[in-house]
């Protein structure tokens, strides 16, 4: 492997990792705080891509599309929490799997009814459509750099917010001991809605950024959901640090696995890596609970 190719793939890997972090942040917080397995998280990723593509096409503004998509997915997330999923916090994991599995079917079908079964085009504005020469012999698409930058900034903001602010303290308190947090006066109900909406918005953001690179189509959320679940499990469910480390790790393993082996074998390597890590540390790299 030549140096430019290695650098390019490393960038690709980190970029995938950053996207996976955006996906798994919501997943891991929702699980850590509300004890809910949300398999429908990938549907919000898909909706983010579809809404952004549609608004961007109609308004001719990528930024507007992105803004609307993030707000819309946040609203859908909040609505889901209030209308349906909050009843499931104290139910068995089996019930949670069932209800979110049903949600996937509904979301996929509704999306198909609205936007059709044919993959949708999502064009980039000219300003980020080209590529620039980062090093001699390495031309890299500008948009991928934008994704990398946005992902890192959002990830950093999230980290600072959760680790350094009062809101973040409530969230962490809720994650480590829900009853105690509630007893010392944290408005747990609002925290729950907020966390859910934020997680949904992050998934929507990841989806709209993936849209122009991958195809915007029904079912695009599920492969990413599964990678995000792997990230969550490896990082330790409920741990933001763990999700960040595991996301970058999985992003790199997946990217290099696909290049060095075949795409299908490369995809298998991730799951083998997960098996090895869990055989060593069953609660993930950064366990939160006990």
């Amino acid at each position: 492997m030549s140096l430019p190719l290695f650098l390019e793939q490393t960038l690709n890997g980190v970029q995938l990792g950053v996207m996976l972090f955006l996906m798994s942040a919501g997943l891991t917080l929702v699980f850590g705080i509300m004890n809910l397995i949300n398999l429908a998280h990938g549907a919000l990723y898909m909706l983010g891509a579809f809404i952004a593509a549609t608004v961007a096409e109609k308004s001719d503004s990528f930024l507007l599309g992105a803004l609307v998509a993030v707000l819309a997915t946040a609203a859908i997330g909040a609505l889901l929490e209030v209308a349906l999923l909050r009843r499931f916090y104290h139910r068995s994991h089996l019930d949670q799997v069932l209800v979110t599995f049903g949600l996937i079917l509904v979301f996929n079908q509704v999306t198909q009814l609205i936007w059709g079964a044919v993959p949708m085009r999502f064009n980039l504005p000219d300003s980020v459509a080209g590529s620039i020469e980062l090093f001699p012999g390495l031309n890299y698409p500008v948009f991928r750099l934008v994704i990398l930058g946005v992902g890192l900034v959002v990830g950093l903001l999230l980290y600072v917010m959760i680790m350094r602010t009062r809101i973040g303290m409530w969230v962490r308190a809720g994650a480590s001991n829900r009853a105690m947090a509630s007893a010392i006066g944290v408005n747990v109900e609002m925290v729950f809605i907020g966390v859910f909406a934020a997680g949904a918005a992050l998934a929507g953001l990841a989806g709209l950024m993936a849209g122009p690179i991958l195809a915007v189509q029904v079912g695009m959320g599920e492969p990413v959901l599964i990678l995000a679940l792997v990230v969550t499990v490896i990082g330790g469910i409920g741990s933001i640090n763990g999700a960040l480390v595991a996301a970058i790790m999985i992003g790199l393993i997946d990217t290099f696995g696909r290049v060095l082996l075949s795409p299908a074998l490369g995809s298998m390597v991730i799951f083998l890596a997960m098996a090895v890590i869990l055989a060593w540390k069953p609660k993930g790299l950064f366990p939160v609970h006990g």
Partner: protein
Amino acid sequence: MADLAPTPNRRDWFAILLLLALLAVVPPIAEAVGQPFAIKVASRVVVFAIAAVGLNLVLGFGGMVSLLHAGLFGVGGYVIGILAWHDFNGEALQLGPFAYAGTGNLLISLPLAVLVSAAAAVLMGMVSLRTNGAYFIMITLAFNQMLYYLGVALQKYGGEDGLQILGDLSIAGLDPSKRLVYFYVSLAALAVVMVLVQRLVGSRFGMVLRASAQNERRVKALGIPPTRYRLTAFALSGGIAGLAGALMASGQQFISPADMSWVRSGDLVVMCVLGGLTTVWGPVLGAALFLLLELGLSSLTNAWQLPFGLIVIGMAVWLHDGLIGAIRRWVQS
């Protein structure tokens, strides 16, 4: 798990015999009224019922929510397909120093399919069962995808497009591509599986399995290591799922990674819940209801996943004990 699965009793045996008898009379009735398509539907019901009964051994009786079973189902199917491929192409299957010519004889390849999928279940169970609860669900889901990508990676055997079985299959001199042969072979397999699982959950083994689902700490305090029992149940359950996959591959002479997608695993869980988790025979009812619902809704509208998804959501919200529980409550009131 909210309610512990009760010890099977005489009524459960009656339900098992009744279901088997009802299924057995489908082909003659279908032939009589000139609807041979119904036999095909019934075969599909029987095959998925086998997989669901297998899954319910760990899901309903062991309290383990596994999303790996479509993967194991596929492993069974691929064993049949790959052995038939080598037999048909006259090229020996090389496994290290061993070579095997392959076979289309299901009396050999069906047991092998069960063994291989049970072995796969043991390997993955050893990692998954180190954890529990949400971790277990997510890990089995990830392993299911690993098996899916393994299917895609098998370029020699069709890769993503799947593996068409071109050679002749036979079982004890009969041809499983014949509708009736296939149906009754599958039904016999379902009967064997149901009797086996029913005997098992009523045994000492089954009692430990059910008890560990309810209170692991007490089981440990009694000096019984629950993980060993769980792993054994997981292996058996995986072997049964593999048997179902093997039967499906022999019936439709085709197996593909699509049969192993994690959505299929979700479908199997829905079947079990639909029929009720507390009996051995409930999942059979659930499989029948699921597939008929799928067939009925998809004949009404292309967008059948919407009503279907809503039904699943409604079931999760209101019906904790499945269809059987709902009927039971309705009868009692």
